């Protein structure tokens, strides 16, 4: 498993993808941070920054995950992985960890600068909110990565994987916003329940809500499980 993890990490940096991801992520992250906190001017609230930064994941997460399985399948290198003594879940989890390392690492790296600026120029930033929001973002990122990996396992074509992932992520973020226009109570509750966006609310109050964290962990697990099932199914048919 560590072998696959190491190779994945290496592959992000032997191709331009890793660099493009880091550069674009850091630039957009800093831009959104400046725009919604530093330049908003009123107080040191970071709520709208965290809400907005999620939208750049729609473009950036697929960049990390589109290659993961589709490229292996296209180049037939998956034959090596699947005939070596590694469990299917180990293989999927290693790829998940690698993509998440890229995502989390870049986010934390960017946040160090963002938050340092915040502490220097703004009055009394709420540390609890910063921490819970960041944890929330990392969890959402993990869920997105798992979804991206799943889509990547469905196709040989990286472009299809990327666009498909974007579609699903947009859908997941949008349904949370749509709920306010829906009258039916039941329908609204259901949409709110599956919406990744509306779940995020608790984090922005500085609460590390276990139920929400379990929800995001479950999404990761479910999509990794589905990826394993895709491989099992392909083996049998």
């Amino acid at each position, binding site marked *: 498993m*560590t*072998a*696959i993890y*190491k*190779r994945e990490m*290496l*592959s992000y940096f*032997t*191709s331009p993808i890793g660099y493009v991801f880091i550069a674009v992520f850091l630039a957009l992250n800093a831009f959104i941070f400046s725009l919604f906190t530093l330049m908003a001017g009123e107080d040191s609230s970071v709520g709208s920054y965290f809400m907005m930064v999620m939208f750049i994941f729609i473009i950036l997460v697929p960049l990390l995950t589109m290659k993961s399985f589709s490229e292996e399948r296209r*180049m*037939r*290198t*998956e*034959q*090596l*992985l*699947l*005939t*070596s*003594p*590694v*469990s299917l879940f180990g293989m999927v989890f290693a790829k998940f960890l690698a993509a998440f390392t890229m995502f989390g690492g870049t986010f934390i790296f960017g946040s160090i600068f963002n938050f340092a600026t915040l502490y220097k120029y703004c009055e009394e930033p709420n540390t609890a909110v910063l921490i819970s929001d960041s944890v929330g973002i990392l969890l959402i990122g993990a869920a997105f990565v798992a979804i991206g990996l799943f889509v990547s396992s469905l196709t040989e074509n990286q472009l299809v994987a990327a666009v498909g992932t974007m579609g699903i992520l947009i859908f997941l973020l949008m349904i949370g916003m749509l709920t306010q226009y829906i009258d039916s109570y039941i329908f609204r509750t259901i949409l709110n329940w599956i919406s990744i966006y509306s779940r995020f609310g608790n984090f922005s109050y500085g609460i590390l809500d276990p139920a929400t964290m379990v929800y995001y962990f479950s999404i990761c697990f479910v999509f990794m499980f589905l990826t394993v099932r895709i491989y099992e199914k392909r*083996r*049998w*048919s």
Partner: protein
Amino acid sequence: MIQIQNLVKRFGSKYAVDDISFFIDEGEIVGFLGPNGAGKSTTMNIITGYMSSTSGTASIGGIDILENPTEAKRLIGYLPEQPPLYTDMTVKEYLNFVYELKGCKLNRKKHLEEICEVVKISDDYKKGRIIKNLSKGYKQRVGIAQALVGNPRVIILDEPTVGLDPKEIIEIRNLIRTLGETHTVILSTHILSEVQAVCDRILIINSGKLIADEKTENISKMIEGSRRLNARICGPQRDVLRVLRSIGEITTAEVFGDREGDSFVYAIESSAGVDIRKPLFYTLAKNNMPLIGLEQQGTNLEDIFISLVDKKQSDKPKKASGAPQFDVKPAYDIKLPESADIGSDADGAPETTEEDNNK
């Protein structure tokens, strides 16, 4: 070492592998022989755990590949049809990756260097060449090196010599023979001379069925029956054919085409067990038709299929109509260096022959 029992693999309604059983002993070099699409790769993919069988079992060293895949896979080194190379890595990075992936516990540096020595890629290994810049032959070698990492007891090579130049083919064959001294090796090919050169035992697969499981000597004996010659003879075509057909032992004689001056090549077949070269020479000399070239034709896979299927049919009581008829012989075979390919290479051969064989 490898036990296959009643293996079936079905894709939809098509049987890619249809009830195959065999046993391979430790240290054997076994060749899977069959035309493209016969089910060789599928069988190998099932043995290595890449695919699951529809029914039947495959076990390696007594471990069932479905029940305990991780342990079974530890015993196997596999080179699939297309070498599974990460082309953006260097040879060194790649082999180190495979080493870790297989969880080997040997001395890493020494082990990998030894492997590179054996497959002759030491130079590429040391100089840090990126795999995508290597030639096809060298990529194939890296693929073989990958299969050898961890010194597995069973080595499975799917068409290891496809796309290599003749010199490389000979080198790879020698390599396989060396490997066979210490490992159990299975290789697949559609080239008859390759298995004859390398393997102890030949399994012939056609349309998903195992049609022969014989020692190599026996297969060689089986195919000595028919004698075919390609003779280049000077003189007018019609006269030469008349003279050739007047020789009693010759069963068929046909013009092969390929004019050179006033000579043509004739494909000549004689009845089994008769050497017609001397009578041919004397008869032609007497008729003042200089024989300026004579080449003995090897038997190809097609002939083996014909003889095997014929044999099977004569063993069984007479079948009702609808049984494939194999009386259509190709007008000629193209003799390839070192090999005799079936199928697509026999340009111009009657279409029916190939189709009938695949039935």
